[in-house]
């Protein structure tokens, strides 16, 4: 079937269309089951079973949820900005899906009788990485518009918070990606992945995580913030803002925000897998596989890596408490930003001495963290915790009738 279509078109275009028709339903199913998995993980971490009534093991739960969302009354608050109110969830979901276009899902496929191998990627852009970064940053528009258009002060605060958070966390995110871009000298995601398929000492894959672990941690933190996941989900902080930006949304519009969030998570995970964990690279196999079975194996490995990331997202969500907003900002501007700037500087120095992607990268990253640690503990720089300009705590609250 695939072969037939490819031969009909004889181009990458035909293959891209086939891929598109496969990827979008696959990702949407993945998104549906992420919501199921999220509830399962939250339950398991809290010694519960999670949804287990709809179908075997509760596997029909996403279907039941979908039917529920479609059948619910679609309510719009009085005074809402109608076009924007309707546009916001669509933007949130649509923009999140744009990122799927440039993810290299499974290397390249060489069918018999074709001169050029086909990229298992919907669109191989020269600036794939920048595109993904730009599209990721656009995701906040859905949230901001939802907050603005609902005519609700809590939603508005949620939107404002999301905007401030996104603007701040874009910077360390960009800087930590810059580290990889500089070190690898590539902006095409598929080339970055290919670079990581080589082996050190014949067994250790040359994944960037081994060279730039600190950049990875910073990027991971920023992706958590970008996808509005706990502990950075201040835009929908229910203790303070009712529901935050989606306070006034219900039925399918509400669900679309969540589909958008999970799609964003999948794209973000795929992005991190490509940059740091060798994308579709199967650990143990040195070279790229271009046979049909090889490509399928690589697709499966990519899916597994993404699933692990999604599990980690959920694991973190159900472990860590939410930040306070000032802590969130401080973590970004006083913590992540200086460290990621220093890391970018270190990579530039490595490039100057012409030793990128060598053990010097690891030494540089560890060195930056060591310096940061010394600075923080020696000078007691309060990145988090109580700030120096606040008065000393005196918890001597006089008891009524007491003699203090």
């Amino acid at each position, binding site marked *: 079937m695939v072969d037939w279509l490819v031969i009909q078109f004889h181009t990458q275009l035909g293959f891209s269309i086939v891929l598109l028709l496969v990827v979008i339903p696959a990702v949407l199913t993945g998104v549906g089951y992420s919501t199921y998995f999220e509830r399962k993980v939250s339950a*398991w*971490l*809290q*010694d*519960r*079973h999670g949804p287990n009534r709809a179908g075997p093991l509760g596997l029909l739960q996403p279907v039941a949820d979908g039917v529920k969302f479609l059948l619910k009354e679609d309510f719009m608050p009085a005074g809402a900005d109608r076009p924007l109110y309707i546009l916001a969830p669509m933007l949130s979901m649509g923009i999140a899906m744009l990122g799927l276009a440039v993810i290299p899902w499974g290397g390249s496929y060489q069918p018999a009788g074709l001169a050029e191998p086909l990229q298992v990627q919907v669109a191989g852009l020269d600036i794939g990485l920048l595109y993904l970064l730009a599209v990721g940053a656009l995701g906040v528009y859905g949230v901001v518009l939802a907050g603005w258009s609902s005519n609700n002060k809590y939603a508005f605060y949620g939107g404002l918070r999301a905007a401030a958070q996104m603007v701040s966390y874009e910077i360390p995110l960009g800087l930590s990606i810059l580290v990889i871009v500089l070190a690898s000298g590539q902006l095409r995601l598929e080339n970055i992945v290919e670079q990581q398929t080589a082996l050190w000492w014949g067994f250790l894959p040359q994944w960037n995580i081994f060279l730039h672990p600190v950049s990875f941690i910073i990027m991971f933190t920023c992706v958590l913030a970008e996808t509005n996941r706990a502990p950075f989900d201040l835009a929908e902080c229910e203790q303070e803002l009712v529901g935050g930006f989606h306070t006034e949304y219900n039925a399918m519009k509400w669900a679309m925000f969540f589909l958008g969030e999970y799609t964003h998570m999948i794209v973000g995970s795929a992005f991190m897998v490509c940059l740091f964990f060798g994308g579709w690279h199967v650990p143990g196999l040195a070279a790229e596989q271009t046979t049909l079975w090889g490509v399928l194996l690589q697709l499966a490995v990519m899916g597994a890596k993404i699933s692990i990331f999604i599990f980690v997202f959920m*694991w*973190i969500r*159900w*472990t*860590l408490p939410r930040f306070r907003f000032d802590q969130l900002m401080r973590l970004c501007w006083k*913590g992540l930003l200086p460290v990621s700037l220093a890391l970018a500087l270190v990579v530039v120095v490595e490039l100057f001495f012409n030793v990128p992607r060598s053990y010097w990268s690891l030494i540089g990253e560890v060195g930056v963290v060591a310096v*940061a*640690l*010394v600075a*923080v*503990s*020696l000078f*007691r720089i*309060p*990145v*988090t*915790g*109580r700030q120096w300009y606040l008065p000393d*705590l*005196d*918890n*001597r609250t006089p*008891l009524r009738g*007491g*003699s*203090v």
Partner: protein
Amino acid sequence: MIKPEDIIRIGPPQLDGVGRMYFGEIARGLGITLGHLFKKKKTVQYPEEERPLRVQNYRGVHRLNRDPDERVACVSCFMCSTACPAHCIHIEAGESPWPDREKYPVKFEIDELRCIYCGMCEEACPVDAIELTTEFDIVGLTREEMVFDKEKLLEVYDQTKQVKPRKNPKITGYSYTGKPQQ
């Protein structure tokens, strides 16, 4: 009198440099939750599984007892409806057809939705005619359905008569730990 030296001041714990970089604490927290991933689940799958009652004097739905001759034991003294703080017992008395008592309830209704299950009625009853069983899972589709009349209350007795509710439990037998009593 509270003296200043009696006061213990507790401030937030100060983190050291490593602590302020969060990683150790985050890893510890993640370890704790990961441990829970593999623990035995605590959920009781309710309709299929039932947990034994924690306390034997649990106050559930009422029953109207029958005497050994299978007659309703109530003598319509109105003690229970007088004692009821929720005013949810409605009794209409009639002349008893039997020689051993003067009155019997023609109508006896308890609004189970208004009831606060305090047990005052069973404490008040001079002939132990009204009792609270340990049944807690009563349901109904309408409010009217939840007003239990005499027949229904006698029916509850017929279904639960093998159990003698414990009105004055020994406090020592009370357990907060979720372990069922003997």
